C-alpha cells in the first residue's frame, strides 16, 4: 500500500465521524410534517375552545418549535455555536418544515357520533380528529371531581400533531381553571418556575461549566478508538495473508523465513499500523479537548490503559484473523469463519448501554473478564464516572493477556499447516484439529 493511500485511509474515518456527529442531530430533530386539516372541538365545559384555538394557531406552533430547536442544538456537542448565525438559521428552516395549519370548528355535544363517522370517510376533506372537552374539565362536578378531555383521531395521524392537540387541550383547560378560580396565570407560572443553572466543574486549572454529555462521550470515544484500530488492522492482516496465499507468494516467502517468523512479522507490522491509527486519532481527540480547554477531564492514566487494552485485544483478534487468513484460499471463503469473530466484536456494542449505565453491576463485572470483550467493557467502566476497583482492572488485563497468548499459540499452529493448504475451506473444528496436530 502506498504511503499516500495510507494517510488518506487514516484520515477519512475521523472526518466521517465528525460529519456524523455534527450533522446527525440536526437531521434527527423533531420535524413536524406539514399537515393541515380540520379539528372538531366539542366543548362541553364551554370555557376551553378559545384557549385551544390560541394554542394551535400556526404562528404559535412555529414559535414553540423554534424554541425547542434552539434548546436541542444547545445540548448537542458543538451545536451551540452552529445554531446561532446564518448557518444555524438555514439548518433551522430545514428541520422545521412547512407550517402546520389546523382549522378548528366548534360543534354541539350531540354531533359527536357524526363527527367520528366523518373521520373514517375519504372524501377529500382532511379531518384530523375530534376533541371532546368533558363538562367537569374546568369546574368540578357534583362529586367534586375535575375532568379532562377525550381525543378521537383519524388513522395514521402523526404522533407529533396529536401531541400538539393534547398539549393545547391541557394548556387551555389549565388556563380556564385558573381563570375560574380568579387567579392570575402569569403569576402562578412565575411562582412555580425555578431556573436550572448548569453545575460548574472545579478542576486544578480552574472552573468550567459541567458538560453532562461528556461523561457519556468519553467511554464511547475510547471504545470507538479501540474498535477502529483493532478492526482495521485485523481486517488488513486477514486480507494480506489471503492475498499472499492465493497469489502463491507464500511459499516463496517461506523459503526465506519460517512460518512463525512470518506470523510474528505480520502481527508486529500490523500492530505498528494499528498504533499509528490509535495515536493519530487520540491526538486529534486530545487536541480538540485542548482547544475546548477541557483536557483536565481526561486522566492521563486512561491513555495508558487504552494502550494496554489495545495491545491485548489487537494480538487476540489479529492472531485469529491471521489464522483464518492462512487457512482459506480467498476472501469469500473467509466469511463463514469471520462471522463468529465479528459477532464477538459486536457484542460489546450491545453491552454498551447497560454497562455505561451501571458500570459496576454484576453483568458489567462479568463481561470485564471475558476476552476479547473484556477490553471494551473495562474501558467503558474505567472512563465512566464510577471506575471499577484497581484489582479488577489488573485481573482483566491478566485474563486478556492469557487470551492473547493463547490466540497467538493457536494462530502459529494453524498458520503452519494452513499456509500451504489449498482446497476445501476448513471450518472451526478443522482449525482446532490442525492446532492439535501441528
Amino acid at each position, binding site marked *: 500500500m502506498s504511503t499516500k493511500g495510507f494517510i488518506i485511509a487514516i484520515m477519512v474515518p475521523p472526518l466521517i465521524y465528525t460529519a456524523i456527529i455534527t450533522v446527525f442531530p440536526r437531521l434527527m430533530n423533531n420535524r413536524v410534517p406539514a399537515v393541515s386539516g380540520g379539528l372538531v372541538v366539542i366543548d362541553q365545559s364551554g370555557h376551553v375552545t378559545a384557549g385551544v384555538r390560541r394554542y394551535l394557531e400556526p404562528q404559535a406552533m412555529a414559535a414553540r418549535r423554534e424554541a425547542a430547536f434552539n434548546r436541542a442544538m444547545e445540548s448537542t456537542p458543538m451545536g451551540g455555536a452552529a445554531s446561532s448565525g446564518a448557518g444555524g438559521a438555514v439548518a433551522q428552516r430545514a428541520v422545521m418544515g412547512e407550517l402546520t395549519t389546523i382549522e378548528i370548528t366548534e360543534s354541539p355535544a350531540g354531533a359527536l357520533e357524526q363527527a367520528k363517522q366523518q373521520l373514517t370517510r375519504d372524501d377529500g376533506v382532511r379531518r384530523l380528529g375530534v376533541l371532546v372537552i368533558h363538562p367537569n374539565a374546568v369546574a368540578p362536578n357534583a362529586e367534586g371531581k375535575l375532568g379532562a378531555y377525550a381525543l378521537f383521531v383519524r388513522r395514521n395521524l402523526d404522533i407529533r400533531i396529536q401531541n400538539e392537540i393534547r398539549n393545547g387541550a391541557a394548556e387551555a383547560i389549565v388556563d380556564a381553571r385558573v381563570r375560574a378560580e380568579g387567579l392570575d396565570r402569569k403569576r402562578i407560572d412565575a411562582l412555580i418556575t425555578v431556573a436550572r443553572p448548569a453545575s460548574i466543574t472545579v478542576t486544578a486549572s480552574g472552573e468550567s461549566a459541567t458538560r453532562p454529555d461528556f461523561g457519556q462521550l468519553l467511554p464511547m470515544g475510547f471504545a470507538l478508538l479501540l474498535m477502529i484500530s483493532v478492526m482495521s488492522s485485523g481486517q488488513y492482516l486477514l486480507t494480506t495473508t489471503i492475498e*499472499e496465499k492465493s*497469489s*502463491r*507468494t*507464500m*511459499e*516463496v*516467502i*517461506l*523459503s*526465506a*523465513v*519460517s*512460518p512463525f517468523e512470518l506470523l510474528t512479522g505480520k502481527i508486529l507490522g500490523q500492530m505498528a499500523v494499528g498504533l499509528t491509527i490509535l495515536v493519530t486519532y487520540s491526538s486529534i481527540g486530545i487536541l480538540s479537548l485542548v482547544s475546548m480547554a477541557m483536557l483536565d477531564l481526561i486522566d492521563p492514566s486512561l491513555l495508558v490503559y487504552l494502550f494496554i487494552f489495545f495491545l491485548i485485544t489487537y494480538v487476540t483478534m489479529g492472531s485469529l484473523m491471521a489464522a483464518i487468513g492462512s487457512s482459506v484460499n480467498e476472501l469469500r471463503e473467509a466469511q463463514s469463519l469471520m462471522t463468529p469473530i465479528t459477532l464477538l466484536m459486536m457484542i460489546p456494542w450491545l453491552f454498551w448501554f447497560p454497562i455505561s449505565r451501571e458500570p459496576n453491576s454484576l453483568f458489567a463485572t462479568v463481561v470485564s473478564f471475558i476476552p476479547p470483550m473484556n477490553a471494551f467493557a473495562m474501558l467503558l467502566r474505567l472512563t465512566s464516572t464510577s471506575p471499577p476497583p484497581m484489582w479488577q482492572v489488573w485481573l482483566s488485563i491478566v485474563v486478556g493477556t492469557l487470551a492473547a497468548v493463547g490466540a497467538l499459540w493457536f494462530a502459529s499452529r494453524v498458520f503452519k499447516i494452513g*499456509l*500451504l493448504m489449498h482446497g476445501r475451506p476448513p471450518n472451526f473444528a478443522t482449525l482446532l484439529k490442525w492446532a492439535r496436530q501441528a
Partner: protein
Amino acid sequence: MSLAISLSGVTKTFGSTVAVDSLDLAVPVGALYGFIGPNGAGKTTTLRMIMSILFPDRGELSVLGRPGAIEAKDRIGYLPEERGVYRKMKVGAFLMYMARLKGVKDFSPERAAAWLERLNLPGVQDKKCEELSKGMLQKVQLIAAVLHAPDLLILDEPFSGLDPVNMRLLRELILAEHRRGATVIFSTHVMVHAEEICDHIVMLHQGRKVLDEDLVSVQRRHDPRALIFEPFERGADASALAALDGVDKITRDGSTYRIDLREGADPVRAMRAVAAAVPPSRLEMHRPSLEDIFIGLVT
C-alpha cells in the same frame, strides 16, 4: 564426504495418502542431483520437507548439518513449484525485498539490474510484477532464489513453462551455480532435462525411492546388452553381423542398426567382432534414455 542433505526413514502422510514412504537420501556437498518421477510421486513433498515447510511424520532429516532448514534458510535458495509474487510490486523492489529477507546486507539496485541483465531481462526492474509474462516472472523468481549465493539450491520444476532459449539460459545458470560450488537439487518430470545436466539421479514413484545412483552407471546398468552400429559405407551388407558370436539379433532403423547381444555376452568382445566384420562409421554402446528406464521401472 560431507553431506548437504540427509534423510533417513522420512515418511509423510496426508490423510490416508502416503506421499513419501520411509525415504532415505544422502546428497553430498557440491553434487548436482535430479529428482525425477511422475506427477504425484512425492517430489515436491520431499523438497518441502527439506525446506522445513512441511514436517515429516516420522524419520530424521538434516540440512547443511542442521536438523532442519529453518536454521539455515539464509544459505539455501529455493524455487518452489507454486511460485507467486506480489503482483503490484516492482520487480526491482521485489528482488531487494527478497535479498533483505535472505540477510544480504549489501544488495543494491545495481546488482538487481545486473542479475536481470544476465537472465535476458534488461530494464524490467521498474515494471510491476503483474506486467511480466509467466516465463519472465519465473526467471525473476529464479534470481530471488540465487541472489544470496546459496550453498544449497533447491529448484522445484524449474523448467516448466520455459521456451527453449530460456531453458538453455536456465541450464547454464544451474551449471554455473554448480561450478561455484553450490549443491543443486532440482525436480522435473521431463527426463531429458535431468539427462542433460545431472550427475546423479533419484527417482521416486508413489512415495518410494526406486532409483538413486549416478547417471552414467544407471544407463550402463540398465541396458548393457545393445550396440548401435552404422556401417562406414552406405548400403554395406550388415546381415553377416547376425551370425557373430554373442549376437542375438539385429534390427535396422534407416542407416543404423541395433545389435542386441545374448545374455551373458561380453559387449567389448562383441564390439571388436562387429568392427572386424563390417567397418563402422559409428559403433557405440546403446545408452537407454532415462525415459526408457523410467517407464521400465514404473510399469
